[in-house]
């Protein structure tokens, strides 16, 4: 066994501590930028933060159950690109109405996910390798459909509303993100599916012996990722007003960063959707805020990469330290979890 795995009890405990650390980080960020930044706390800027993060947020949400099972999906960014291009193709070249093109795009996302899932569950190939392959494959498909240069544009206003409009005062995407996070949260924390994901992450063999439908649950996680990547492709296209083969490049890594920052163990078994959302928010506020502080305005892009890395290491270190402290306390036998075992 390579990774040190937490027992569920210490896992849940350390997660709660980790989320507290993230809350502190987030509040500090907001306070700092409110004082040091220019026009940070405005409604328009709040909308900006949401708009710029929604795709990565959606991908991070579906990445959470996958990482909970001990897997990974490197292909989500490429799936986004392929779906965006396909959506444009169906609408402009095949002349389909927008809603139908949208539905077919979601179907295509599901197919991409199902392709990953088939290779992972039927052939028992490692998710890292499978999705590394489809990472190139899907992006390559998108590039060959458009020969790398064709861009779909001039979408009607009604569609662009999805990316630029507001509903009840909030950006359209905020509602999508909200809906998706509630949905994924229910799935992961309120249904047996979620428990199953964690069980697989702890020990796939154990889950199998326990009679859990490991293959079907894994397939669900990857298909869901494909569908969500397609949703992200639609919001992305609507936000930029253009669909090109390079859409969503590198987003898989941002999503994984947010999930890991949110406290989900890369070895699987431990993690939470709320942690992931906190991770997404911490990164989003950081990169937005940096572009508003006079001292960092002209190197915001470099700094946000640097500080995101720093933040990840800091948050993980802080929670590892507090976990070590928690362990010692557990060993003392005072905790109820300890008693239960």
């Amino acid at each position, binding site marked *: 066994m390579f990774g040190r795995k937490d*027992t*569920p*009890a210490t*896992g*849940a405990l350390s997660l709660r501590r980790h989320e507290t650390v993230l809350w502190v980080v*987030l*509040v500090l960020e*907001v306070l700092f930028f409110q004082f040091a930044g*220019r*026009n*940070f*706390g*405005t*409604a*328009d800027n*709040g909308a*900006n*933060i949401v*708009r*710029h993060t929604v795709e990565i947020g959606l991908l991070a949400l579906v990445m959470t159950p996958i990482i909970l099972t001990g897997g990974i999906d490197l292909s989500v960014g490429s799936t986004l690109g392929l779906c965006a291009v396909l959506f444009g193709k169906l609408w402009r070249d095949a002349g389909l109405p927008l809603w139908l093109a949208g539905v077919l795009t979601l179907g295509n996302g599901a197919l991409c996910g199902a392709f990953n899932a088939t290779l992972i569950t039927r052939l028992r190939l490692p998710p890292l390798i499978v999705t590394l392959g489809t990472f190139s494959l899907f992006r390559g498909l998108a590039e060959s459909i458009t*020969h790398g*240069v064709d861009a779909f544009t001039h979408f009607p206003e009604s569609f*662009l509303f999805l990316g*630029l409009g507001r509903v009840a005062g909030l950006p359209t995407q*905020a509602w999508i993100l909200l809906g998706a*996070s*509630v949905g994924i*949260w229910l799935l992961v*924390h309120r249904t047996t599916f979620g*428990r199953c994901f*964690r*069980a697989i992450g702890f020990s796939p063999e*154990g889950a199998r*012996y*326990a*009679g859990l439908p490991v293959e079907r649950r894994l397939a669900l996680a990857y298909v869901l990722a494909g569908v969500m990547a397609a949703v992200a492709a639609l919001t*992305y296209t609507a*936000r*930029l*007003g253009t669909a*090109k083969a390079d*859409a969503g*490049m*590198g*987003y898989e890594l941002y999503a994984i960063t947010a999930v890991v920052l949110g406290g989900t163990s890369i070895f699987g078994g431990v993690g939470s*959707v*709320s942690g992931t*959302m*906190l991770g997404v*928010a911490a990164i989003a*506020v950081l990169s*937005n805020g940096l*572009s*508003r502080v006079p001292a960092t*305005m*002209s*190197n*915001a*892009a470099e700094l946000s990469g640097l500080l995101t890395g720093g933040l990840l290491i800091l948050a993980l270190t802080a929670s590892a330290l507090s976990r070590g402290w928690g362990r010692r306390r557990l060993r003392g036998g005072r905790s109820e979890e300890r008693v*239960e075992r």
Partner: protein
Amino acid sequence: MRDESSPLALRRWTGVYSDRSNVMRPILVLLTALGLTLAAGCKKSETTSVDGGAAGPGSTGRKLTIALMPKSKGNAYFVSCKQGADAAAKDLGVELIFDGPVNPDPAKQNEIVENWITLGVDVIAVACENKDGISTALRKARHAGIKVVTYDSDAAPDARDFFVNQATPEGIGTALMDEAARLCANEGEFAIITASLTAQNMIEWQKFIEARRAMKFSKMKMVALRPCDDLKDKAQAEATTLLSAYPNLKLIMAICSPAVPGAAEAVKQAGKSGKVKVIGLGLPNENRRYVKEGTTDTVILWKTTDLGYLTVLAAQALATGELKAGATSFNGGKLGEFKIAGDNILLGEPFKFTKDNIDQFDF
């Protein structure tokens, strides 16, 4: 291993894990994050000029803020544009923000522009990476009363006020062909190395190179056109092939920047320095060595520092109202007078970097 693999233990610990607390935690997370950013206050936004636009800066005495975006930040070409822009900002006493993408994410330029809109800058100047995508954000900026200038590469015409055009395809094509003819004494074979056979700007340049050749230099003959995929190694290999395939070749013209040092290296290794001339479009620094030792004769480009300087100048003039749509010329201060064709401010003739002047430039 502990007893984790037994079904009974499994059920127990999955039971322990299900969190009954905090029913709507993700909603709380989202709402609080949003709430924090929103509620913290709109008191600061009073200083913004988003809706006051052009009227604000001069009268209130606040410094004019110009935001300048390169296609990508690490690119030496744009770093040298920034040098010129910095100089202009200093001369004019305006605040200059310089930010741009550091990775290939095509949405990044849009995000930065949208952040600048809410930041409340007065003018946005962009070198557009993705024309259609960025135009959406630039229109939004104009809608918010912010002046928009593009430089180096344009957006959709309705998404900006002016485009600072560093060189027209005709200017580039003509300059390249004239220089080639001069070096070859108006006759002989030459070959072109391009980035790819489908790149739109290169096709455009070739058209004007050919037009100029047909018009003035009929004794010059183009024998080959080879793509190098914008790679120096490939350009070097192509140039080596050209040298052996066309023994009478007098000149290689490289029209994408990696191809210029690539072709020079091939000529040098073949021992034909001076016999086969090399010219091309590129940056002085990449070619300095070859120019100084005489393998490459001329590197053609524009003065990127002037491009940056002029962009900031135009941005400021636009904000103060000195520069208006329909103008036919623009006073570029210490750079002199510039022509305006339609809504393009023309930087003028391309600049030739040769052995004699290349040491004055560092980019």
